[in-house]
């Protein structure tokens, strides 16, 4: 396959603003995204703790919190509407501003060009715009959090008609919901700009010798994720526009005739609440794969590096990434089994959903096979990647239950679903981010994160997340519905309260332990051990350049690639790893 030479002539940026604020350098933009994600995850975690506080102790008064959020406590315990607002914003902020930014726009922006041997992304100006657009989106979302009338209470899924009818449907459904929609619409635009850049860079700007089948799996994952983002976000944008019009333009895209909300008769007619669900989930399902695929790429990459073994069945791994990406577009109906959708359609979606489990299983086997007869080095990056494998299995197998409509009759909209998606997204994907952080921090900042504190962080996180989310399966099996501000109104749920207390305590401990990571991150910037070019003895292109890299990545010499991405422990080679840019003779 023909490979292409670099197409950019770069001048080094000058001045603080050009270098660090309005920078077109993909590395700076990557760090900006990661910073945004860190701010967002902090907000998201605080919101989740507020939720857990209410779930465990629903009638308790919290005077200090009432001081900060007077509307949310109204002189007594936390109100249910405050709980729902926290729930909505927690989900939204985590899914969009953490799981869609950090793995893809954060690490991907920084490392994709380097891994394929390019000087920068294909469209650096557009790249810069994508970050600032996303930042604006985040600011609007924060406005929604503090909007008059409250933050929206319709969940991150914003089902209609609840999200469409305005304040008569409940608190937060006024300005809060409108700002939410606007924020999401802006976010869609930012993601599209990112996706364009990733795809063009991979297809056109790879260095000499970097054929597609020599790309690291991280690059393959970013590439596929970008395809998903390109085709999914516009659908959300369309839905958002129509929802906004239903709210402020008097249209009836999602609102049927004859609605009477809070004794007010609405004049809308002819819309379909299910139409929103279809539009949302057509986006929503690829979105969750956008959240996990980069983590899968990182896991493959790190397991290989720290087992000193090639990734098992590289070609199959590439195929699996594509298969997952492709099939993810035809499974969205499994979120709608109980929605009133045609049961025949449900059967079709059930089959496709089971099908998407197959490439995921292949990847899991291959990860285990990568470990087989390896020489494992237990660095923090490796620990988090091993944790990813464990969590991915835990979260993935429950998919087998939820994919069957008959079983879903009971499990839909219960805590079983909450357990499933949290373990996959809220933990496995997060572990993928942490793994990437421990692995790439030395390259980005020239210093190593402290491995000792990293291990403490790891253990608290691993044990903690299992303590938080495993019990939720049992809540679901007992029939505990989702999005309940408390379970005390139902006799059949009362015996589950101790589980909620256990989960909440585990959550508080786990979230607190994340402070260790943040502390490590900032302390190591100045006090970490100097990293050198390749502290992990890893093979991909980013490890052949200085830490941190010069502004044009590779300096005066064009990189030329002679080897595949995972040449570890090649028999007869001088070292147990061959870098991709090593001369051809390095491989006997």
């Amino acid at each position: 396959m023909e490979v292409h030479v670099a197409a950019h002539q770069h001048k080094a940026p000058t001045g603080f603003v050009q270098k660090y604020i309005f920078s077109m350098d993909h590395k700076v933009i990557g760090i900006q995204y990661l910073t945004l994600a860190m701010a967002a995850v902090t907000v998201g975690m605080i919101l989740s703790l507020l939720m857990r506080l209410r779930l465990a102790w629903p009638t308790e008064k919290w005077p200090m919190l009432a001081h900060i959020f007077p509307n949310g406590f109204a002189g007594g315990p936390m109100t249910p509407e405050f709980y729902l607002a926290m729930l909505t914003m927690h989900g939204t902020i985590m899914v969009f501003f953490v799981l869609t930014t950090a793995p893809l726009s954060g690490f991907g922006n920084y490392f994709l060009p380097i891994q394929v041997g390019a000087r920068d992304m294909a469209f650096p100006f557009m790249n810069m715009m994508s970050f600032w657009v996303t930042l604006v989106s985040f600011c609007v979302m924060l406005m929604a959090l503090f909007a008059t009338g409250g933050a929206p209470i319709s969940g991150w899924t914003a089902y209609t008609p609840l999200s469409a009818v305005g304040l008569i449907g409940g608190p937060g459904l006024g300005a809060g919901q409108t700002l939410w929609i606007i924020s999401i619409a802006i976010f869609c635009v930012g993601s599209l700009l990112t996706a364009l850049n990733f795809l063009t860079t991979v297809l056109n700007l790879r260095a000499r010798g970097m054929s597609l089948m020599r790309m690291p799996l991280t690059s393959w994952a970013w590439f596929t994720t970008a395809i998903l983002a390109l085709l999914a976000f516009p659908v959300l944008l369309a839905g958002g526009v129509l929802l906004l019009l239903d709210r402020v333009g008097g249209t009836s895209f999602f609102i049927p005739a004859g609605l009477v909300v809070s004794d007010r008769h609405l004049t809308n007619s002819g819309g379909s609440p299910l139409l929103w669900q279809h539009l949302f989930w057509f986006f929503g399902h690829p979105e969750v794969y956008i959240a996990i695929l980069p983590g899968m790429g990182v896991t493959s990459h790190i397991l290989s590096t720290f087992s000193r073994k090639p990734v098992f069945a590289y070609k199959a791994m590439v195929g699996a990434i594509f298969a997952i990406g492709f099939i993810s577009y035809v499974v969205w109906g499994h979120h709608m089994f109980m929605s009133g959708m045609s049961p025949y359609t449900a059967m079709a979606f059930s089959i496709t959903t089971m099908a998407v489990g197959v490439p995921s299983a292949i990847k899991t086997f291959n990860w285990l096979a990568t470990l087989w007869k390896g020489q494992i080095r237990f660095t923090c990056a490796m620990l988090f990647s091993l944790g990813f494998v464990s969590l991915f299995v835990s979260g993935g197998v429950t998919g087998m239950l939820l994919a069957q409509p008959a079983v879903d009759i009971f499990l839909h909209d219960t805590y079983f679903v909450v357990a499933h998606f949290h373990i996959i997204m809220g933990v496995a994907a997060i572990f993928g981010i942490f793994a990437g952080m421990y692995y790439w921090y030395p390259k980005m900042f020239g210093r190593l994160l402290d491995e000792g504190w990293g291990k403490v962080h790891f253990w608290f996180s691993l044990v903690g997340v299992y303590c938080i989310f495993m019990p939720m399966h049992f809540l679901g099996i007992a029939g505990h519905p989702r999005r309940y501000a408390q379970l005390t109104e139902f006799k059949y749920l009362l015996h589950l309260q101790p589980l909620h207390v256990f989960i909440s305590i585990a959550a508080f401990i786990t979230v607190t332990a994340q402070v260790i990571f943040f502390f490590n991150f900032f302390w190591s910037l100045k006090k970490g051990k100097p990293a050198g070019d390749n502290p992990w003895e890893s093979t991909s292109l980013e490890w052949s350049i200085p830490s941190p890299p010069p502004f044009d990545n590779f300096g005066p010499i064009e990189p030329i690639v002679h080897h595949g991405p995972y040449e570890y422990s090649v028999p007869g080679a001088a070292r147990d790893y061959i870098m991709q840019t090593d001369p051809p003779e390095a491989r006997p």
Partner: protein
Amino acid sequence: MSVATLELPTGPEPANPKVLLRTSLLGMKLALAGIGMLFTAFTSAYVVRHGLDPDWHAMPMPRILAANTLALLISSLSLEVYRRRRDGRFWLALSQVMGVFFVAGQVAAWRQLQAQGVYLSNNPHAAFFYVLTAAHGLHILGGLFALGGITVVAEARRIRWLEAASLYWHFMGALWLYLLFLLFGMN
């Protein structure tokens, strides 16, 4: 450049115009794929809503749309002439003028509908008309901005800009024909 003729390079490769052009065009094609998905989503909403509603009263096509369509077609043709000749400011100017005429004509169509009392809220067919023409119109405005940029950007970038803008503009023209068909061709 094939891998077989490698020599150790001594410095960064100069920017290769052919690759730059191909890169710009690829980026534009991908962007059009995304924009296409936006209108695909709107289409599916339209089809579903149309099928659901017993009260669907399709409004007739405002006649000015015929003139607007003609303007957009002329605009594309004119731009294509300019693109192939890479010269002839008249053709570019004609294209821009026709583009502005199109936008003005769309606004006039909106005004006409409003004068007849047809708004977003009281007719679902009209609601889609407003949404689709607004979404398309915003993209046309972006395109006008791009056309304006052709003579303004630095010489080194001009060809890429022109090629990418032309591709975008023709796509918007074809999209308009599609939207006309969707809104009025199936009644």
